[in-house]
């Protein structure tokens, strides 16, 4: 139990959260170098048990959560994934399985369908199998993914393909679009890499150049027009080349709660990279207590914490100052304006950095793995 904390003022408490990102496990057969999980991955022995997850879901529904994203790692690596999904359906929670489609995923899919799974988001690392398997670090992953996708649509489940875009596959954007159509997906996410976690330490190996990014955007625009009514394409543009930052997680402590495999509750998946924040665990507190009272959720909620130029900016309640974790990583100050914002004094340096990295020969990937001791100068000092 933590020391008592004064109750936050009413203006600091947000309306109920709408989404719960349930990182059921950090175990995953893939080793993608852009994984959003933290560098220090939770081990199986520390994972929450089934009863605790079922309680967390019940509390989430009571708190007002509508969507549950069953994620990881690979969520189907949990033996109780069917039980957890069934609980979502029982509670009326919309269940979204975010999966790699490999390992035991296909084997469990029919059971998940039967208990009421609502939606599947399948990751694809590349279109060309050899390229995809080089990126994901797993041989024979591609045929498994294709089989899995085929079964999803055969069952009549809505399928979203998620492609994380970087310099190793940006040339395949047209291929991802064709693949989504071929597999019968209703949605495709063309998501340029967000540089947190493993992606941050692999940034130089992943960063595309501006011309490639622009071209990928044009290709998506053209395909949206051509595939109206057949495929919805969501585009996540890369921060480093953007004009304004994204409202990360819809604003800190406004919409989303993220529960780690060990039961630590975060305002976003990268929040642990900000030093000094006090996170609470579901084993010690109810979700409701954590949402309304935990110091980590209160830290950057609303606009009171802001500095200039955010404080007086008329976009401050649109993008909420952008991403705190990115401000921490790049500017060395979690309260700074996200350098992704063109109003940040560091914006042009951030872009320069991206341009330089994109122009150099990419280094080898540091593949995601539990227990890796990652060495990277980026982790020692904020680069801007």
């Amino acid at each position, binding site marked *: 139990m933590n020391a008592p904390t004064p109750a936050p003022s009413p203006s600091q408490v947000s309306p*109920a959260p*709408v989404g719960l990102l349930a990182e059921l496990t950090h175990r995953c057969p893939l080793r993608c170098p852009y994984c959003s999980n933290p560098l220090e991955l939770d081990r199986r022995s520390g994972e929450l048990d089934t009863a605790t997850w079922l309680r967390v879901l019940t509390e989430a529904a*009571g*708190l*007002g959560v*509508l*969507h549950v994203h069953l994620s990881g790692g690979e969520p189907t690596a949990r033996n109780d994934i069917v039980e957890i999904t069934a609980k979502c359906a029982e509670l*009326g929670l*919309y269940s*979204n399985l975010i999966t790699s489609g490999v390992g035991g995923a296909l084997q469990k899919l029919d059971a998940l369908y039967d208990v009421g799974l*609502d*939606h599947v*988001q399948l990751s694809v690392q590349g279109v060309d199998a050899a390229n995809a398997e080089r990126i994901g670090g797993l041989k024979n992953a591609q045929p498994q993914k294709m089989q899995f996708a085929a079964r999803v649509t055969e069952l*009549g*489940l*809505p399928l*979203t393909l998620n492609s994380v875009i970087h310099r190793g596959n940006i040339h395949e954007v047209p291929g991802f679009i064709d693949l989504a159509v071929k597999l019968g997906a*209703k*949605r495709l996410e063309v998501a340029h890499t967000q540089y947190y976690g493993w992606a941050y330490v692999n940034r130089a190996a992943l960063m595309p150049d501006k011309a490639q*990014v*622009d071209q990928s*955007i*044009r290709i*998506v*625009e053209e395909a*949206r*027009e051509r595939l*109206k*009514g057949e495929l*919805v394409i*969501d*585009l*996540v*543009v*890369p921060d480093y*080349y*953007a*004009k304004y930052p994204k409202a990360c997680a819809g604003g800190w402590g406004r919409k989303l709660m993220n529960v780690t495999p060990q039961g630590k509750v975060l305002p976003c998946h990268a929040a642990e990279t900000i030093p000094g924040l006090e996170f609470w665990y579901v084993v010690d507190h109810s979700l409701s207590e954590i949402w309304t009272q935990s110091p980590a959720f209160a830290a950057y909620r609303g606009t009171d914490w802001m500095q200039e130029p955010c404080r007086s900016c008329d976009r401050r309640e649109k993008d909420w100052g952008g991403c705190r974790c990115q401000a921490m990583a790049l500017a060395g100050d979690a309260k700074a304006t996200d350098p992704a914002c*063109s109003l940040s004094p560091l914006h*042009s340096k951030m*872009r320069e950095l991206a341009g330089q990295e994109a122009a150099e020969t990419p280094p080898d990937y540091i593949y995601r793995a539990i227990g890796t001791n990652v060495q990277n100068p980026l982790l020692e000092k904020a680069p801007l």
Partner: protein
Amino acid sequence: MTAQFPPPVADVEQRLLSPDELEAALRDIGARRYHNLHPFHQLLHDGKLNKDQVRAWALNRYYYQAMIPVKDAVVLARMQEAELRRIWRQRIVDHDGDGPGDGGIERWLKLAEGVGFERDYVLSTKGILTATKFSVDAYVHFVSEKPLMEAIASSLTEMFSPTIISERVSGMLKNYDFITKDTLAYFEKRLTQAPRDADFALDYVKRHATTPDLQRKAMAALTFKCTVLWTQLDALYFAYVAPGMIPPDAWQPGEGLVAQAPAPAVRSVAFAGGDVPRLPRGVRLRFDDVRGKHVLLAPERTFDLDDNAVAVLQLVDGQRSVSDIAGRLAETYAADRSVIEADICPMLADLAQKRVLER
């Protein structure tokens, strides 16, 4: 400069003009040669250019804006009297501002950003037409080489600019949905700055062009300046309107723009009385106890619904047709069935467009 620009009013005899006659002759040059008459500007103001053509204009014109204070500094350096310099230096302040984020160049950058450019790309000047650069550089050379009176006379196009600015602002706001009043903030300032500058310059020229030869040189200087502006539009027209020959290294549509997520595509799906609507798997209507209202849950999205949409969706079961649903609602609300049917068809079409309803 070796090129000779012929006197613009060839039939005026070589006599000394009165100051008022000189002013009239100068104004006549503008009436016939100022760039508001150029076909490119007419297209621009009438909303006939596409977004990329407007972008090309904004980008190229930036080079002119950026060099104006350089030109004025050259003129300033040639002024022997403090009184003149005090007045002239205001032009440099107007363009450069008193600090970062201020001034005419900054406002022009805002305009370029407003039409989608990346600031750094504009600042680099690398996509600017060579013809634009030659033309603008010729202006800077002109004021450094000609006598001061002619350098000042060449600035007199400012006499004509308030007309073009008001035409431009109202035309562009009316005709282009991507142009806002903020984007055009540059011109708002120039509406008051230009006449002030022109009054001074005109007075100076009238007082110092005291021989027939000097008067013709003043007229030639203004003609030259009109040509500087005109040539820039010729180059834009040639590269980006017709025949559309963009020289190597010049800006190509799509380059130098800020990455932006485009608006989602819209598709139209019509519903008629006989159609049977249904919610596909992965889309669910439920009551949200916490917020006290119905919501429609879909992949990665939640839709808020108004009471009418809720009443309709509660009857969507994959069995009832649109007419059946209208009939049920007509009973419940004691209203005319055909009126209700006419109301709910567009609502269903809207939901189908968002991919949360099928038939």
